[in-house]
């Protein structure tokens, strides 16, 4: 079972976002970086599949050179190989990203590395385009299920379960396939110290992809207008509960 898992470097945002002066990006001067939550689970899923079925897990990202950090994080929890599509400058849209990823997969296939399963996060935490996994599937003519919260591999078939309008939907699709997962499919592990040390020394394949013209062109970012609210302090500690009960009564949720 050879799995490729695609991740995106995003900032760890806290209680509020501030933007850079040119309104093109989040001001990340004081922020750390991670990958999108769905993708943390995709990495974990790939490692679990390889532990259970053998094979290898390769982690890939398209991003700036410093996104190497996210590849090493993935290798620290068990991914075996890493591929970095280096792209400095403005963010790529979903179409351009998918085209670059599909090309690498096709090149790997020509070089004798064929993946049985391509894992993506359902949507990135920042751009939220819902595009990349589906577009890669089309470019490589593979079946694709998105929003997956449970995945089982039986011989040459992927059994994928997700939430649908009336309950759960179960899909059975032949491998090779593209699966876009959601957080909740598993609980990602923490890296071990030996894992971190191994990841630090592991090689990273670097590729300089060509950027296609964006079809969705980011112009500027802006913060949504916040609700203009004044918080009413009901009190300190247990002294606040009396007024809290009054408030709950006003709202109409007190038991009768």
């Amino acid at each position, binding site marked *: 079972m050879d799995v490729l898992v695609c991740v995106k470097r995003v900032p760890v945002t806290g209680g509020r976002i501030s933007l850079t002066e040119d309104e093109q990006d989040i001001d990340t001067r004081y922020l750390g970086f991670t990958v999108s939550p769905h993708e943390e689970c995709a990495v974990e899923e790939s490692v679990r599949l390889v532990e259970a079925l053998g094979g290898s897990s390769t982690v890939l990202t398209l991003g700036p050179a410093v996104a190497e950090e996210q590849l090493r994080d993935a290798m620290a929890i068990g991914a075996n190989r890493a591929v970095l599509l280096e792209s400095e400058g403005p963010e790529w849209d979903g179409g351009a990203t998918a085209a670059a990823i599909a090309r690498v997969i096709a090149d790997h296939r020509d070089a004798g590395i064929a993946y049985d399963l391509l894992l993506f996060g359902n949507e990135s935490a920042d751009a939220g385009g819902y595009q990349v996994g589906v577009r890669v599937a089309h470019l490589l003519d593979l079946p694709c299920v998105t929003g997956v919260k449970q995945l089982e591999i039986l011989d040459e078939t992927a059994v994928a379960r997700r939430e649908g309008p009336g309950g759960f939907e179960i899909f059975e699709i032949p491998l090779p396939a593209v699966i876009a997962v959601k957080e909740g499919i598993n*609980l990602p592990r923490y890296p071990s110290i030996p894992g971190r040390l191994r990841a630090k020394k592991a090689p990273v394949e670097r590729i300089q992809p060509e950027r296609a013209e964006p079809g969705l062109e980011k112009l500027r*970012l802006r913060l949504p207008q916040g609700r203009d609210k004044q918080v009413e302090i009901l009190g300190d500690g247990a002294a606040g509960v009396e007024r809290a009960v009054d408030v709950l009564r006003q709202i109409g949720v007190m038991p009768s």
Partner: protein
Amino acid sequence: MIVGLVEHDGGVVSEPSLQMLTLGRRLAERLGVPLAALVIGSEARPVVDGLAAYGVSAVHHAVDDRLDRYAPEAWAACVADLIARARPSAVLAPGTDRGNEVMAHVGARTGLPVAANCTEVEPGDQFLVTRLRWGGSLLEEARLHGDVKLLTVAPHAFQAEEGPAAGGWNVEEFSPALQDKDFRVQVARQEGRPPGKVSLPEARVVVGGGRGVGSPEGFAPLEELAELLGGVVGCSRVVTSLGWRPHTDQVGQTGVRIAPDVYIACGISGAIQHMVGAKGAKRIMVINTDPQAPILAHADYAIIGDVQQVVPALVSAIKEAKGR
């Protein structure tokens, strides 16, 4: 022509679809073109007539026996078929899991870009769209290219409104050009949700717990508070990452969106990813030791104090008030 892809559940049009049609109608009015709806599968028949009230003047109903079970590529093929025949200026879908999935397939099939989760659209040669990033914590203004503009409409960004249709009323059934390959991914079977207690998205009261709850056992008083108020317990991402609660309890960008009358947030700092999940809450009551916590900026009411003392005190006070 503007086309709206309408989703339904058991013959009832979904609320996000009506919101999408509302934006579609405004767009059609601006461009002076009719608004058409695309509905897929014979199960959709009951929804057709109700669409006129939302300004739809033509319904294109894709019919094929194989469409009875949802298949994302087949749905996308229906959209692509209509695009090829009717050359609409834009196709809109609701920004639901299914809507975003189908439109991604349509974009991939046709080579057109897609803008997901739009809240505003300014038509033109290229559309200027405003769309959600970070689940709605941030907005992006973008230029959407393509001969046919493909976009999804963010759910619950505005209210659905009825409105008049431009022109008459026409319902046309068609057999879309479908290949076997379009059904290689299709729902094999469905399972209903287990019946039982109120679900998080529907709950009138949600008691949320964060790191400040301290331990899995620390949730017992929150459970008691929720039960007293006829609500359910939710939690922040930290709590699920620590393994204290199942992921199904997680409120936020990658979890559940809630819309209760009151959200009682206990020991939650208020990261943006959590707050977008609670945006639908009518009121927020915070229990937190830190009066500077970011969540206070979203709160209507706050008790400054330790969850482990305040929540049991609140439970006692509610029981006492109930007894009176």
